[in-house]
């Protein structure tokens, strides 16, 4: 599905990612750990195609096609979708409108809204005065309408109460076609600090982003356990010793 080859990314003239290699196959869910400021959001923004996140080296392959130079909206149309850590407010543009505009293949907006308990937000300006949890729910509703085959989720559970995490987990599982076994193709990359979302969403592979690279892959739960025990210096004691 997605492959990053020696990806280098610069923000405001400073290189943040120094050569990231990562491969996510069809039907796989990957998790990205890493300390604050490591460059996790930067990586997702670069994959999505935000011009401010300048790719200065390496390449991004999506379903075998080199999309390194493809503009943002064309990547979205090819099936990449993202839920944002801090999306902007757009005054005058209603939440239901953004969901409608995101919708491909005529998916029902009511369904997405109901699934994420969004009814009361639909007629409000998108993200305007939304609580932390409301932002996450509105982001996921937009993705459910958009139906991407590859999802980038930037801390989908941070600031969300326990009941709503389960709601979000359900929506993420739908996006990732977790109810399908054989026919599943959709895949994703999820950033998490706490790992709470892993209680609801099955993840296949974990990665650690540190000092601008992604040095290793492993079992996500084990990695989380190591990080909790030893902090992000896990690399030093990592048994794989890569």
């Amino acid at each position, binding site marked *: 599905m997605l492959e990053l080859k020696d990806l280098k990314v610069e923000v405001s003239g400073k290189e943040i990612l120094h050569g990231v290699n990562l491969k996510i196959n069809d039907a796989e869910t990957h998790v990205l750990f890493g300390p604050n400021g490591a460059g996790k959001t930067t990586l997702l923004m670069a994959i*999505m195609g935000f011009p401010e996140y300048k790719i200065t080296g390496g390449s991004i392959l999506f379903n075998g096609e080199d999309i390194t130079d493809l503009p*943002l909206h064309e990547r979205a149309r090819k099936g990449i979708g993202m839920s944002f850590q801090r999306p*902007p407010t*757009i*005054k005058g543009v*209603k939440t239901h409108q953004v969901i409608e505009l995101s919708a491909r293949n005529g998916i029902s907006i009511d369904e997405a809204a109901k699934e994420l308990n969004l009814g009361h937000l639909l007629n409000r*300006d998108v993200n305007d005065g939304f609580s932390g949890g409301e932002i996450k729910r509105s982001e996921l509703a937009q993705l459910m309408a*958009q139906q991407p085959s590859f999802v980038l989720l930037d801390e989908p559970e941070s600031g969300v109460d326990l009941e709503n995490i389960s709601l979000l987990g359900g929506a993420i599982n739908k996006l990732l076609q977790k109810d399908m076994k054989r026919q599943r193709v959709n895949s994703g990359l999820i950033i998490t600090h706490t790992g709470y979302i892993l209680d609801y969403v099955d993840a296949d592979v974990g990665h650690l982003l540190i000092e601008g690279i992604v040095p290793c892959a492993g079992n996500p739960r084990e990695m989380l356990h190591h990080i909790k025990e030893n902090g992000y210096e896990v690399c030093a004691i990592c048994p794989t010793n890569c």
Partner: protein
Amino acid sequence: MSHKLLDDLTERAKLAINKKAAFGEDIDLTKYLKPSNKHDYVEDLEKLSDEEKERLIAVGVDTKAEQRSGSFVQHDTKVSHRRSTQEGVEVMGTGEALEKYDWLQDYWWKAVAVDQDKYTAHVELHQNDGYFIRTLPGVKTVYPLQACLYLREESTAQNVHNIIIAEEGSELHIITGCTTGPHVKEGIHLGVSEFYVKKGAKVSFTMIHGWNENVAVRPRTGVFIEEDGIFLSNYILLKRAHSLQMYPNAYMVGKNSTARFNTIIAVPEGSHVDSGARTYLRAPGAKAEIISRTISTGGTVISRGHMIGEVPGVKSHMECNGLILSETGIVSAVPELEGHVADVEMSHEAAVGKIAKEEIEYLMARGLSEDEAKSTIIRGFLDVSIMGLPPHLEAAIKKTVETSQKGFM
């Protein structure tokens, strides 16, 4: 009207006839001609020429007057149509009203000072009607009333004096369109409007302007709002206006009175608009809000707001947002807050600039092209649903906005 009062007003007007306004280009009023006034009274607005009907419709006038509780049309200086279709709702020219009602002098130049500047003075000295609209106590308009001030003759001045009274507990919705004939290149519209919102009454006043090339516009408005009264003003200008300046005053003299001013203005190249609202919060519980959205595609727009909290327990908020969509346009926001006592709650936000890249990209990440994203944001920016209009009126105005929008997107 008593002779003494009349003489006194004339005297004050004469003294102010050269008094420059506080804002806006100083306009030489002597260059405008007197219109010949060769208009006939029309019983049915549908009988107007197609050309003229089109202009009226563009500023929100329904020429069939189907969903209207009354209509008023003035061509140049003469009332050409007036009708009320609801009991308890009065619609007529102010000239006629002055003859009919002695008490009207108590409302004459009471919300606007006759010697505020040369424009108010000019209206007093050369007054040609204007509308008188009044709802009797407890009467609620079923449909909005509509009024149109139409500038038909080239290079003339229109001097109108409007009086709007909502008696106690009544509800009045007015939609006013001001426009020019399609061939009028130059002219000036001077409009004095005095509003009296009595105890527990509600007035919504929606004004759409559609001017031509070199028309200058100087509205002068004052509003008195009594206890529990609500005054809601919506102003929409999307077409070129060579020079327009206005700064209405709302005097919130009654407890728990409310005033809201919503403005949507777009200025193409050649337009210079200086528009604002001033609210005097003079009684406990008074609430005021000013929201302005301005867009420049090459012209200049200044949006002002001045809120004065004079007593404890008042609240006000102001929002001035401006978008610059071209290299040369100027958008300026001048919010001003003035608290005279400690216990006031007043705030403002202002932002001016191009469409935020962040917002465009957010929508692009959902699959919209850059142009689609921009027009979605602009459409949202000009959303009239913030105006809180009755649904069918909102739909009609939405249509007007969307049609004009195509012109500058």
